[in-house]
């Protein structure tokens, strides 16, 4: 059994392409070409070159000595926070902008919640000199002003999504509507392992560079490619897909996914999709999603804007349903505490999304000699105001 997508884009019962006919030609063009394009020598060369010289890869795999000492296990940090633009998101946008160029597209659209993917998209569009429109919920625009300014400085147009709840899911709807209206010249750069096939698989492949590096880096440090556990936070799930990717079909590597419980799973203000979601369709994908009994998609909550997506990538829905992945949800409070702890034990201020993953050590015991690799998916600069407000710094 494989935990990768099959050729129709299904992970077990999850995935597929539940799209209106208006999107069929767009997705079909991508579906027919993405693997072939990615596997050409030219594409690989350009992608690797940009990841090395522009993004700053490989990112270090760092043994966190003081954190390991405290929790009595061996903890390694995969330093995606050191990527250009401050998070793993840029791995995917570099890959997709090259894909868009190969497919002859001259206009890019993207959705963004907190603005990280929007910034990563605006960055690569500036790099390539391609027109860029980023859809962002009206509410998110108001609460993420620095990232809006970054996108504008990079030359992108930020369009407010004014429909529905005016947050990430609505920004995604608006981007999809734009793509329906501009089917020929435009490529849609989705920011996570969500959306219709082939997006979840394509984005996972671009992010798979994370676990590809972990394999040889861990070999150097521990003499083995396989850790005992890989841990990541999951909203849509792209950083998680990246660090799981090369271990998905290696059962001796435990997969741990950390979701945002918000104010508590039963508080009515949560984003723990595996616990609260039911099978349904969101943004063209069959997956677990938070919804009313009547099938209306509900608005999730987390202190971290990057984790409050009402669905989850189909890869992760399958990891959950099959039992291959261990899913844990962490509250706002526990995540914030873990973020502060990492700052003070290791001198690294993580993004609040990432802080959720670090809270695992207070919720789960690991053996003393277990090797745990945790994806440090983003840095905390963007979250400083939230940290300041929370800790009254």
């Amino acid at each position, binding site marked *: 059994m494989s935990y990768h997508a099959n050729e129709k884009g299904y992970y077990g019962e999850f995935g597929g392409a*539940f799209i*209106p006919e208006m999107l069929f030609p767009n997705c079909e063009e991508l579906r027919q070409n993405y693997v072939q394009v990615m596997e050409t020598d030219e594409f690989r060369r350009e992608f690797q070159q940009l990841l090395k010289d522009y993004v700053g890869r490989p990112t270090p795999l760092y043994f966190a000595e003081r954190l390991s000492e405290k929790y009595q296990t061996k903890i390694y940090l995969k330093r995606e926070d050191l990527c250009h633009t401050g998070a793993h998101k840029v791995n995917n946008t570099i890959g997709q902008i090259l894909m868009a160029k190969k497919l002859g597209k001259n206009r890019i659209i993207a959705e963004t919640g907190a603005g990280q993917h929007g910034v990563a998209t605006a960055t690569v569009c500036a790099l390539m000199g391609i027109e860029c429109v980023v859809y962002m919920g009206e509410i998110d625009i108001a609460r993420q002003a620095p990232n809006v300014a970054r996108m504008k400085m990079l030359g992108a147009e930020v369009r407010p999504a004014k429909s529905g709840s005016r947050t990430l899911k609505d920004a995604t709807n608006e981007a999809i509507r734009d793509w*329906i209206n501009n089917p020929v010249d435009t490529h849609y750069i989705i920011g996570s392992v969500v959306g219709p096939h082939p997006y979840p698989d394509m984005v996972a492949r671009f992010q798979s560079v994370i676990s590809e590096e972990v394999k040889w880096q861990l070999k150097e440090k521990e003499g083995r490619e396989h850790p005992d556990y890989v841990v990541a936070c999951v909203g849509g799930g792209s950083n998680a897909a990246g660090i799981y990717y090369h271990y998905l079909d290696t059962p001796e590597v435990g997969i741990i996914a950390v979701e945002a419980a918000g104010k508590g799973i039963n508080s009515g203000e949560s984003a723990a999709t595996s616990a609260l979601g039911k099978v349904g369709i969101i943004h063209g994908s069959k997956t677990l999603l938070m919804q009313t009994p009547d099938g209306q998609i509900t608005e999730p909550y987390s202190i971290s804007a990057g984790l409050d997506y009402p669905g989850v990538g189909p890869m992760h829905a399958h990891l959950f349903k099959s039992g291959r992945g261990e899913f844990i949800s962490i509250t706002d409070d526990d995540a914030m505490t873990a973020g502060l702890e990492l700052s003070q034990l290791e001198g690294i201020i993580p993004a609040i999304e990432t802080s959720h993953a670090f809270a695992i050590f207070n919720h789960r015991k690991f053996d003393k000699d277990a090797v745990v690799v945790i994806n440090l998916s983003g840095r905390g600069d963007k979250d400083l105001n939230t940290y300041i407000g929370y800790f009254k710094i």
Partner: protein
Amino acid sequence: MNRIKERLNTDKKVLSIYFTAGYPNLGDTVPIIHELEKSGVDMIEIGLPFSDPLADGPTIQESSTHALKNGMTTELLFEQLAGIRKTISIPLIIMGYFNPVLQYGVEEFCAKCQEIGIDGVILPDLPFDVYQEEYEAIFKKHGLGNTFLITPQTSEERIRKLDAASDGFIYMVSSASTTGAKSGFGEEQLNYFERIAALKLTNPQIVGFGISNAETFKAATANAKGAIIGSAFIKHLTQHGVSTIDKFVAGIR
């Protein structure tokens, strides 16, 4: 489905109207259907509102959000429509997104449609291959037709495949757009209408998206069997309410 076929089997050009159930007021569903039939409309698409209508422009989005706020649900819509066939004889189609149907239960949904006398379903985000593999048998068992969409970008090969799998009509999306996005037809659309007419498909085509008045209705039906008006009708409801529906319809043909 037979009601649809009978209606399409005349010389007359077909006018079909879409509206969102539960809008402007929760209780307007049945009065709107009565007014539409009385005004001479040939077919009705009853929109089942969804929180995230991907293929729709602002007008239908807003009407959907409003209808959901009013308290519209799948169950309530079925309750409102119970007994509708005592008074209404034109074809009734339910149009919506797949997720609410999936949550209701596809089999239960189809059974309920049959019980009420619904003739067909349009679920734009239920893909053709999934429909064929998993749901066609259920739809057929309950006498329901599923209508497929084609767009100017749909290949001839795919159009032929969709035509072969259709039983009723083909929903011809007039241009690459969401609903209500464009008004009027350019040369590109008119060429597309002629290109499709020349394919001589088995199923008649009904054009939707971009039809808002007598002029666009006439242009759309020059080659096709009929046309569907949605956003323009919803705008009319927003401005003038249910009581002047006859005037809106009279202005179309």
